[in-house]
């Protein structure tokens, strides 16, 4: 049995949300640098330059890489043999995460981007509630992954319930169409998370989980999906949208596909679009 103190989880989350928002990670910078080499458009090259300068300023001054510091989305992998110590007035793991995020967004001068009702739209003032996806596992795993998910890119995401007859081609066309429809809106060069299979809600979750894969641009361990990822990246980068939509060779930095078994009648597919300011960070205890 492993014991995790919830006050420690809160403190780690408080630091995590800030670090993710201030420091563009090395794998993201590496992909940006390699894509810059294939870019031909002068306007696009100027955008790449500003993306790198922006990363320097954000890191040095502890400023949000983007003013949209996102909904705070967490994926928790929790081992069933982990004992949670409810210390320091923290009643639950959910409470520890929510409190850590609330404190981190406050302390880091991060934007509060949550409204308490989708139609009546009053800001909650502390960027809560956060969004937590739980995965219970055997053993003593304790891992939390955070993604700061901005609204601009999230809005360009899509889901479709295909008939199985649509096949691989139907899904690939849908991914490319979704990237094209997003155009200049989601802050290209984008990262494309694709979830294939599962059911209606599970495909969307898979698409978001695809965005979490590190390092950025690495491929699915199944060669079939690895090839699909390469083909999709090539097709999206032929669209001409380019960085910030001003025309160019680099519309996407990476495509990650995740799959799951599904119903004999169904072939769900979801595409979660992410901006170039890809803020994903994890810790384990």
């Amino acid at each position: 049995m492993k014991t995790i103190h919830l006050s420690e989880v809160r403190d780690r989350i408080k630091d995590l949300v800030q670090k993710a928002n201030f420091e563009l990670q090395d794998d993201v910078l590496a992909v940006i640098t390699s894509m810059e080499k294939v870019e031909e458009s002068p306007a696009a090259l100027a955008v790449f330059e500003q993306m790198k300068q922006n990363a320097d300023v954000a890191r040095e001054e502890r400023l949000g890489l983007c003013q949209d510091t996102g909904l705070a989305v967490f994926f928790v992998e929790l081992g069933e043999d982990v004992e949670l110590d409810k210390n320091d007035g923290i009643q639950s793991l959910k409470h520890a995460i929510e409190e850590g995020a609330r404190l981190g967004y406050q302390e880091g001068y991060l934007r509060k981007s949550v409204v308490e009702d989708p139609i009546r739209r009053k800001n909650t003032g502390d960027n809560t509630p956060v969004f937590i996806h739980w995965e219970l596992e055997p053993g003593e795993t304790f891992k939390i992954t955070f993604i700061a998910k901005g609204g601009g890119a999230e809005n360009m995401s899509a889901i479709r319930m295909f008939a199985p007859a649509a096949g691989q081609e139907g899904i690939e066309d849908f991914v490319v169409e979704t990237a094209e429809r997003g155009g200049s809106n989601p802050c290209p060069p984008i990262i494309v998370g694709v979830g294939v299979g599962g059911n209606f809600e599970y495909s969307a979750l898979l698409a978001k989980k695809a965005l979490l894969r590190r390092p950025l641009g690495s491929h699915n361990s199944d060669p079939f999906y690895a090839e699909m990822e390469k083909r999709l990246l090539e097709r999206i980068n032929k669209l001409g949208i380019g960085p910030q939509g001003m025309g160019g060779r680099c519309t996407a930095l990476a495509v990650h596909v995740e799959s799951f078994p599904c119903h004999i009648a169904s072939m769900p597919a979801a595409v979660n679009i992410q901006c170039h300011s890809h803020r994903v960070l994890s810790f384990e205890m």
Partner: protein
Amino acid sequence: MSEHRITTPVSDETIALFKAGDKIYISGYLYTGRDSAHKKLIDLVKEGKDLPIDVKGQMIYYVGPTPARPGKPIGSAGPTTSYRMDSYAPTLYAMGLKGTIGKGARSAEVKDSLKKNKAVYLASVGGAGALISKSIVEAEVIAYPELGPEAIRRVKVKDFPCIVINDMYGGDLYEEGKKQYRIAE
């Protein structure tokens, strides 16, 4: 592609110089506003009431900044996606607004309104909010403080970098750029 250094407020003659793809460096004052503030402004127009800002000759920057750290005028302050303001923008252009600054494509109605009212749509680099904050030297909330990041601010800018997306002649950098670099399958 040319470069222009301008100071707000701007005249029709200045707007007439701008072509899609030109680089613009703005100094002077900009107003900030996004979804909720626009809804409130347009509600006032519908009710025939005065707006808290006079948009004539001015530019609106679509931004919801992060809070300012102590001693700084503003936090991270890059553009938000503009299409969400498409249903509101033509009304403001008709009232004399000369420019909006954001990112992402505009509707046909907005583009028509630019031609009709001699106005422009500019973009700054999305996702470069930390860098862009360096061009903002002062910021003051002047309306709707209850909206938090969505409040209307008056910001003083110095050489604030933008690029012309839509000019008053129908030029569209997004369309032109995509056409130039698209590779047919």
